[in-house]
C-alpha cells in the first residue's frame, strides 16, 4: 500500500495547471481531494510520474448563481456542498446525495469535480448530474468548452475529457420550485459503492407528472440516463402502472457486473426497487 515515486506540482491558476498537463502529457494526473486517485496509486494500479494538485486554485472554488444557473466549482468538497444553503434551497437532491457518499472524513476532502470527472461508475454524483441535465465546464489548451453530463461518460474511467483538460465547474439549471426529487441508494456499509442507486427529478402539475428525469448509479459501465423510464412517467399520475413501466424500462438498460455486492440478477432487481422508491419519494415531495 505504498505508491511509486512521483513529482508533486501545485499550480495557482487553471492556466498554470493546463501548462503542467501539457508539459508532462500522459505521465501527469490531476489530484484534488485524492479519494479516487490516491488509493489507486497505493495499490500501484495508477503510477503517475507527476501529480498536479489543483487545490490552491481559487477560481475552482465556491458555489454561485450565474444567470439563473447554479455553478459549482470543481474543488467544492462534499462537505461544502452539504453546507450550501443556496443548493439546499434550489437543488436539494445534491445535499441528499452527498450525505450518502462515504463518511464525514471522506466528504471533507472529496470534491465534486473529482467525483464527476473520474468516470468511476461507482460514484454517485454523475447520475445525479445526468438527472439534473447538468453541463460540465472544461478548460484545456485550446480554450473552454462545455459537455452535457449525459454525453460525458463513455466507459468505466473513460470520459469526454481529453488529455490536458480540466473540469473546472458544473453548471445546473435549477429545477422548478416545488419539484420532487430523490436519490435512493442501497449500499452494504458506510463508504461502499452502491449496489444500485437511482436519482429522480420530477415535476407535478395538478396531479399529473409534467416532467421527469431518471438516472442510475453503478449498474453499468457508466452512469445511465434512463430516458425511456423518464418518459414513461410524463403525463401519468405516477400511479402503480406508470411506476411499474418506468421500473421495467430502467431495468432494461442496466448491465451490472457480478461482484461481492451480489450477482447480476440481484443488482438489477435492486436497481428497479431503487427506481420505484425514488419515484415514490420524489412524488411525495413534489408540491405542485
Amino acid at each position, binding site marked *: *500500500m*505504498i505508491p*511509486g*515515486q512521483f513529482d508533486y506540482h501545485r499550480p495557482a491558476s487553471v492556466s498554470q495547471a493546463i501548462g503542467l498537463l501539457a508539459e508532462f502529457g500522459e505521465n501527469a494526473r490531476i489530484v484534488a481531494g485524492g479519494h479516487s486517485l490516491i488509493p489507486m496509486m497505493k495499490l*500501484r494500479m495508477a503510477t503517475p510520474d507527476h501529480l498536479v494538485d489543483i487545490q490552491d486554485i481559487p477560481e475552482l472554488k465556491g458555489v454561485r448563481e450565474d444567470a439563473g444557473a447554479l455553478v459549482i466549482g470543481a474543488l467544492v468538497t462534499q462537505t461544502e456542498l452539504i453546507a450550501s444553503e443556496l443548493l439546499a434551497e434550489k437543488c436539494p437532491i445534491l445535499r441528499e446525495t452527498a450525505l450518502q457518499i462515504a*463518511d464525514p472524513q471522506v466528504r471533507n476532502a472529496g470534491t465534486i469535480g473529482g467525483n464527476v470527472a473520474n468516470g468511476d461508475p461507482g460514484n454517485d454524483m454523475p447520475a445525479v448530474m445526468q438527472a439534473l441535465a447538468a453541463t460540465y465546464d472544461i478548460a484545456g489548451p485550446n480554450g473552454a468548452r462545455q459537455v452535457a453530463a449525459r454525453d460525458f461518460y463513455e466507459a468505466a474511467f473513460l470520459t469526454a475529457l481529453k488529455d490536458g483538460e480540466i473540469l473546472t465547474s458544473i453548471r445546473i439549471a435549477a429545477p422548478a420550485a416545488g419539484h420532487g426529487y430523490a436519490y435512493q441508494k*442501497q449500499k*452494504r*456499509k*458506510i*463508504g*461502499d459503492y452502491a*449496489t444500485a442507486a437511482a436519482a429522480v427529478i420530477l415535476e407535478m402539475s395538478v396531479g399529473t407528472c409534467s416532467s421527469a428525469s431518471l438516472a442510475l448509479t453503478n449498474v453499468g459501465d457508466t452512469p445511465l440516463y434512463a430516458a425511456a423510464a423518464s418518459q414513461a412517467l410524463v403525463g401519468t399520475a405516477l400511479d402503480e402502472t406508470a411506476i411499474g413501466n418506468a421500473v421495467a424500462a430502467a431495468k432494461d438498460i442496466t448491465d451490472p457486473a457480478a461482484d*461481492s*455486492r*451480489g*450477482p447480476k440478477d*440481484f*443488482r438489477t*432487481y*435492486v436497481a428497479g*426497487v431503487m427506481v420505484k422508491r425514488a419515484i415514490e419519494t420524489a412524488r411525495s415531495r413534489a408540491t405542485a
Partner: protein
Amino acid sequence: MNEQTPTPSERAEKLQGLGSSRKRVEDARFTQGKGNYIDDMKLPGMLFGDFVRSIYGHARITSINKEAALALPGVLAVITVEDLKPLKLDYMPTLAGDVQAVLAGDKVLFQGQEVAFVVAEDRYIAADAVELVEVEYQELPALVDPFKAMEPEAPVLREDIKDKTEGAHGPRKNPNHIFTWEAGDAEATETALDQAEVVAKELISYQRCHPCPLETCGCVASMDKVNGKLTVWGTFQAPHAVRTVASLITNIPEHKIRIVSPDIGGGFGNKVGVYPGYICAIVASIVTGAPVKWIEDRIENLSATAFARDYHMKGEIGATRDGKITALRCYAIADHGAFDACADPTKFPAGFFSIFTGSYDIPAAFLSVDGVYTNKAPGGVAYRCSFRVTEASYFIERMIDVLARELNMDPAELRMKNFIKKEQFPYTSATGWEYDSGDYQTAMDKALQAVDYTGLRTEQKANREAFERGETRKLMGVGVAFFTEIVGAGPVKNCDILGLGMFDSCEIRIHPTGSAIARLGTISQGQGHATTFAQILASEIGIAAENITVEEGDTDTAPYGLGTYGSRSTPVAGAAAAMAGRKIRAKAQMIAAYLLEVHDNDLEWEVDRFVVKGAPERFKTMTELAFAAYNQAIPGIEPGLEAVSYYDPPNMTYPFGAYICVVDIDVDTGVTEIRRFYALDDCGTRINPMIIEGQVHGGLTEALAIAMGQEITYDELGNVQGASLLDYFMPTAVETPHWETDSTVTPSPHHPIGAKGVGESPNVGGVSAISNAVNDAFAHLGLKHTAMPHDHWRVWKTAQKLGLTG
C-alpha cells in the same frame, strides 16, 4: 496511633477491587494517541523489510531474479529460500505440529504466500524493490473446495510431505489430508439415531472469515552482535511461546532472546501464531546487523495471516416427537489452507469442537472432523473465541432451530426442554467434558422475560399475516441462542502447545511504602488487564488498585505464561494473580502476628488489614506490614514481600449466556435491520462490570460483522476475494445496533475468585442469535437453513427462492 478509621465497606470501596467499574488505566494513553504500537517504534539505523508475494494460488516457481531489485539504491538484501536453506530456516514448525514454508521453495501454495523478503533503508524503497524482483511461475490447478481435497483426483498440494502417512494427529488418508479427529461414542449415537422418532439433518457451513485486527501484524527484530542477544518487539499474543519457538528454530539459546509485546491493537487470534515475517526480520537483522522492521498492510493481513473458521458441518440430530433430544452426530470438513497453522492445544486438532452438544443434555453424541489442505492462506485460529467453540456453538444452535422446525415447536421451548439442569452440575457431556457450573433455566427465563418473548411471537404472527395480505414487504425474525463456552485452557494434564503446558503465572512485588507491581504471563490487546488484574489483587491483598502497576509482555521481566487468547487470561492468569496475592497475604499475616505479638491464628483478614480476633482496635494494615517486611528483622521470616504463582487450572471454565435478536428484513432488497439485541452473560464473578460491558459490545459487533458480511473467498483459480476493507465488512457505529446487556452470576466452583472469562462469549453467542433470527424470519415459509453471511444478496436470494420477490 489508631485514629478513627472508615468502615470496612468504605475501605473496600476505596480499593476498587472486585466488582468495581473503575475506569481503564490504559485509556489515558490511548485516547491521547500516546499508545506505543509496533509501527510507532523507531530505532537508530532501522531497516525495513517487505515481501514479494505469490500472485498465484498454486504454481511452480521456475526462477527468481533479484538483480534489478538489488541494483536499486538503498536496497541491502533480497532474501529467498536459497538463503534460508543453509540456516535450516526454509521451513518453520507451526503450533499445530506441521511445518510452514518461511519463503516458498519450489512451489507456492496460496495467493499472497511469501516468496522473497526485500530489505531496504526505508519502506518506500523496499516497496519499489518488491516490484523489481522477477519471479517466474508455472501455474498449477488450484484446489479451493475442501470437499474436493479428499477426492483421489485432487491435485497434491504439499509435495514436501506427500509420502508421510502419519501426521501429528494420526494417520493421513490422502496427500491433502491432515488429520481425522473423533469424539464421543459412534455406536451408541448410530443406535440412538436409528431409534429416534424424528431426525433432522442439515449442512451447516461457517464461512472463512478473518479476525482483521485494526493493527496488522508486524515486528522489529534487533540482533545485538556484541552480546549476542536478539530482541524482537512484535504483535504477539503469546510472547513467551514465541521466545521458546524462536529459540528452537534459530538455535539461539533462550536466555539470549528477549521478546516484547508493546501495545497491541487487537488480536482476536490473528496474533497467536508465528509468521514468516517474524523469521525473515530476524534473519535480516542477523545478516545486516541492524534492526529490521516488518509490518503488513491491510491486504496482506487479510490475505496471508491467520484466517478463522472455514468449517463445513454435516449434522444429524435425533429426538422424540415431543422434543427430547436423544442423539447428535456431526461430520465436519475443516479447511486449514496450505499449512496446518492452527493454534489449538496439541491434543485437540479440532480445538474444543467436541463441546458441540452445547447447553443440552444429549445422551449420545459423536463427531468426526477431517482437516484438509487447500490452496488458501493457513490459519484456522480462534477469532475471538476459544478453540473452535464458535463453530461448535453455531452448529448446535442452528441444529436446534432446524429440529424445532421439524417438530413444529418453539425454538426457545425446545432449548429449555433439553437444558442441562442446575442440579446436574458438575455435568459430564457425552464427549467427556466436565461442565463446572451453570444455571441455564434462570438465565433463559430472565432473557425471555426481558424481551417479552411471547409478545414478540404474537407480533411476528401479526406481521406474517400483514405480509400475506400485501400490507408490508418486511418480515420479522426472532433469533434465540443459548451458548456454553469452554474457556480458560487449560489443565496441563491435557492442554499444551508445542509441549508447553497451558498454565499461567503472576509475580507480585510489594514495595516498602505499600504499593506494588505485578507481572503476568499474559498480554492485553485491548482487554484492559492493567485495570482488572489490579482489581483482583486489590481485593486479595488490600492495596488500592491504583497503587498496583500491572506489566505484561516482556519476556525478560514477566514470568512464563502461554499468553492471551481463548478467554484464558482471567481463568488462568487471573487465578494465578489471586493465588500469588494469597501468598503475599500469608506472609503478611506472619509479620502481623510478630508485630502484634499474637499467634497467626489469632488474626483475621479484614479488607486491607489483619485484625486481632476479638480486639478490633489492634490491627496492622497491609501498608504497615509492607514497610515492616523491609525494615524489621523478624525471626524465621525472610525480608521482603514478594510472591509468584504458577497456576495450573483444575478444569476449564464454562461461561454461558442467553441472547435474543429481533430483525426486520426487507425482502425486496435483502436489507436486514437488527431492531433489538439482548445479551445476557453469565461469566461467574464479575471483576469490572464496565469492562465486561465493553467486551460484550465489542464481541457482539464482531458477531454482527461475521453473521452479516465478513467473508474471505477464493475463485476457482485460487485468487483471494474480498481481502480489503472495501469489501470485507468492518462495521462502524452506523451499522452497529444498540446492544442491551444483562447478567446472571454463577461463580466457577474451582476458580479462586469464581470468574470464568467473558471477552469471547458475545462472538460465540452473537453469531448464532443473529443467524437464527434471519432464518426465523422465513421459517413459516418452509425455510430450514440458509447459510451465512446474511448479506443483502444472499437474504434476497432466500426470499427469491421462496417466491417472495415476484
